[in-house]
Every structure is written in structure tokens, then in C-alpha cells.
């Protein structure tokens, strides 16, 4: 399966890439990084005009298509780890196949690339665990159940909105909780499960982001959570930095779901050393 990394997992979320790719390998999924890729295009992904912002994601989709053809990969899956990349690439794909007008403009502008045939299937890491590997397969490999560990999941918004690309029910998502239960953890209900972390507002109005991180963290702490679980590098970044701003340090650590799986199936080599220590300390306390 082809893999689109995205800038964040290469820069600030290295522990996510390490653990997620490790796990996929463990479950027999052959991941091949795209030879050529650029930023998914999120910087313009949330604006209203539609053609120009489709350019960057479309190039990535075209390069994926070309590489799939070259390597005769016929499942046409394109794996993403970052929720934001998932959202941008998938939305661009849908815009292209559903809006003739945009497709026309894109084709005219991208005359330096091959034609996009519209068959790349953008898929997020959690979907692979759920739909392709299957949670029961993960259960079989369990060696360190996270017994008694209370966690809150944080989906953020990019996997759930807009509706057309949602990987689960946007109002009551369960896909992460189901897996966490299999890992032996206890999930707690709290109001921020599908809240936006305010993403790139951190560059313009950071005080809003710090406030949001504060709200999410306090709510989770009140309910007795020991850590926050996410799959989005942006949520992880904003919450970590937000906590440092508000409390002077990280009071409630943020872990990627992949890190918890790696620990639960006993594959410590996929965890960064400091992360492993941190997780072990938390588990000692429960």
C-alpha cells in the first residue's frame, strides 16, 4: 500500500510515524512511501475558493496514481497518518470527481502532470486497523493489556467533518473507543471528544488555542483521565504546547493510538525511549 507521510509526521510527530508504520508491518501490511510528495495543501484547504487549493493535493494524488501504476499496486490505497492530510487529500479527490467545473480548471492548470483518473483511495491509519486488519487480529497479539488505564479519546475534527469524508458518525464516533477497549483501557465520556483543537489558528491567535487546550485538558482531568489519545499530530501539538503555556508543564500527556497499540502488543521497539518510559510510569500509577 502506498503511503503519503505529510510534513508534520516528518517534523514534529516522529513518534507517531515510527509506531504506526511499525504496527502495520507487524500486521503484514507492506507500506511504500511515495517517491515524490509535497505538503497536502492544507494551508489553503479550508478556504472557500476551490480550484487553487485543489492543486497541491491533486499533485500528490497524481504522483500516487503514477507510482501505483509503475509498481502495479492495484488496491490504489493511499495511507495517511495525519488527520489533516487525510481530510485535505480526500476532499480534493471528491471535489475533483464530483465537480466538473473544478475538474476542468484543474486539468487545464495541471497540464504539466498526467491526468488524474480519480481512483486513488485515501485511507486513514485507524480505518486500516478497523477495516483491513480488523480489531480481533489486534486482540490476538495482545500481551500487555492496558488494565485500569483511564483515557479520553480526542478525534479532533478532521476525521469527522465534513460528513462526506467522515470515517465514523461525526456526532458520536466510536471507532477509537472500540479499539481502546480491546487494548484493555477504559474510555471516559467527556464533551470534547470531537472538538476541534483550532489547528492553524495557533499561528495567528495562539491565545484562543491555549484556552481550548485548557478546556479540553481540565475536563479530561476532572473525569480522572490519565492520558489523552489521538491520531492527529496537530491536536497533539496544540494540546502539548497549550498545557505548557497554561500549567507550565504537560499535566495530561497526549499519546498517539499507535503508541498504545505498540505497547499493548509488546513491540517496544516502535516506541521512542522517552515515550515508553512515560507510558510505563503512568501505568505504574494505576
Amino acid at each position: 500500500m502506498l503511503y503519503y507521510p505529510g510534513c508534520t509526521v516528518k517534523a514534529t510527530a516522529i513518534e507517531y510515524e515510527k509506531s504506526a508504520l511499525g504496527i502495520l508491518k507487524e500486521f503484514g501490511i507492506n507500506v511504500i512511501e511515495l517517491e515524490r510528495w509535497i505538503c497536502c495543501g492544507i494551508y489553503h484547504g479550508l478556504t472557500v475558493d476551490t480550484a487553487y487549493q485543489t492543486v497541491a493535493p491533486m499533485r500528490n494524488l497524481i504522483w500516487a496514481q503514477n507510482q501505483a501504476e509503475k509498481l502495479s499496486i492495484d488496491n490504489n490505497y493511499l495511507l495517511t497518518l495525519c488527520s489533516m492530510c487525510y481530510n485535505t487529500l480526500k476532499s480534493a479527490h471528491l471535489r475533483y470527481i464530483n465537480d466538473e467545473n473544478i475538474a476542468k480548471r484543474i486539468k487545464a492548470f495541471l497540464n504539466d502532470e498526467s491526468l488524474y483518473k480519480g481512483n486513488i483511495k485515501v485511507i486513514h491509519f485507524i480505518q486500516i486497523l478497523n477495516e483491513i486488519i480488523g480489531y480481533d487480529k489486534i486482540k490476538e497479539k495482545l500481551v500487555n493489556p492496558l488494565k485500569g488505564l483511564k483515557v479520553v479519546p480526542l478525534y479532533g475534527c478532521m476525521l469527522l467533518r465534513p460528513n462526506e469524508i467522515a470515517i465514523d458518525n461525526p456526532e458520536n464516533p466510536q471507532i477509537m473507543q472500540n479499539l481502546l477497549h480491546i487494548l484493555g483501557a477504559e474510555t471516559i465520556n467527556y464533551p470534547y471528544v470531537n472538538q476541534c483543537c483550532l489547528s492553524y489558528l495557533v499561528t495567528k491567535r495562539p491565545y484562543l488555542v491555549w484556552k481550548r487546550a485548557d478546556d479540553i485538558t481540565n475536563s479530561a482531568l476532572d473525569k480522572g483521565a490519565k492520558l489523552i489519545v489521538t491520531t492527529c499530530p496537530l491536536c497533539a501539538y496544540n494540546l502539548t504546547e497549550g498545557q505548557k503555556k497554561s500549567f507550565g508543564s504537560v499535566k495530561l500527556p497526549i499519546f498517539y493510538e499507535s503508541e498504545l497499540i505498540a505497547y499493548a502488543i509488546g513491540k517496544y521497539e516502535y516506541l521512542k525511549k522517552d515515550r515508553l518510559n512515560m507510558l510505563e510510569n503512568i501505568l505504574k500509577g494505576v
Partner: protein
Amino acid sequence: MPGTVETIKDTKLVEGKAVEGVLGAGKKLVTIYVMGKWYQVPAGLTITKALEYLGYRLVRGVGCRAGFCGACTTLWVKKNDYKLYSGLACQTMVEDGMYLVQIPFVPAEKRIYNIEELEPNGSVVLALYPEVTRCIGCNACTKVCPQEIQVMDTIQEIIRGNIAKAARMAFDCISCGSCSLRCPAEIKHFYVFQLVRRLYGKYIAPKAKHLEKRVKEIEERKYDGALDRLIRAGPDKWRELAEKAQKDEEVET
């Protein structure tokens, strides 16, 4: 349009006799436009030479004349072609119907930094040039680069923090600025590339051992005697040595 001629008929007087023009009678002429003005020049000239043939004295927009300095950035369009072309005037032959604009220099602000105080990572580059993250992937920069650098991909390597790779990819950049003129994100690629190459050279690339050794020898004044002898040797000896050196022969002083 003034009457078009096909070939050169020019001659000039040398010691009272008419001889062929410097550029050769019988050569084909092409029509070009310089700053909107119609001209005919012999085919086969570079844009720089064509301008001088027409009598322009180049003060800005020319330097090495060898494709290395990036001073001669020129834009043009052609008849019945929507594309805006760009290239180095000293390296590009005139073509019939070219509509040329010389770019004396590309305005850009260079951020001030002390290389000694920087760390070699992507965040440092983005802190100095935050506009780099505005890249929308249009690839306009790559299309105009006369050095055939994958400009967009290099910018993208910087965004994801891989400055060593970016420095190697941008090694051939001659700061002509064509890419920056076209960039909708207003990135000043050549300054950004200079920064990543400096960081790479200072902190990442392996140090050249022989260079260190030679610098040390110079500091220890090992070559002072040889230099003194050379200065005393006089012009004839210098000429002889220079000729030898040009032929890559061993030079003893």
C-alpha cells in the same frame, strides 16, 4: 512594422575597403522586441549579444556572461503562445518574435541572521522565512528555473525539515530570482536556498580535511618563503608560471 529583411547586408569599411560586417553577411535575421521596440538581429546570437549588437550598453542585468552569476534574468513571450518564458540572457539564443523584458534585479528582502547562532534545522529556516509555508504547490517556480532545479520540491523539503536534502537539491541555484518573480506565495527562494546551503556547509557537510591542513600550513607561514621568491621573480617568470598553471602542469617557485 518596418520592412522586413531576410539576411544581413551590412558591410563596414576597414582601411578604405568594404568587408563583411563583424557578424557575417548572409546570416539570417530574426525579429525581436526590446522593451516594446522592433528590431532585427542576426540569428544565433544570445540575447545579451543581440542587445549589444543593437547598441545597448548593458550596465545592470549582465555579469559573468557564462551562465554562472544569475545577473541576466530576462522574461519574454512568443507569438501565439500563452506562456511567459524566463531565462538567462547570456545563455539563451534569440528566437524570431521574442518579446523581451530585461529584469535588472529581483527585489527581495534578505533577513539578517548570524550563522554562528543558528541551529541546522527546518524550524530555524521557517522562523526567518515564514512565507515558505505558504507554498501551494503550483510548480510555477520549477517551470522557469534555468538551472533545472526542482524548486517546488526543494521548498517542500524545507517545510518538512529536511534541510540537508534541500541544500543538495538547491546546490546549482545561481540566485537569478526567476522563481521568486513567479511565486504566488511570494517566497524568495534564492535567499532561502542560500540559508539552507550555509547551514548545511557549516553544520552538516563533512569537513574537508585537506583544507584544514592547508589553512594550518598557511597560518604557520609555511609558504611565506615561496611567496617572497615569487614576488621577486618578476613579470617574465610570472607569465611562464601562469602558462604552466593553465595547462595544469606542476608549478615550482
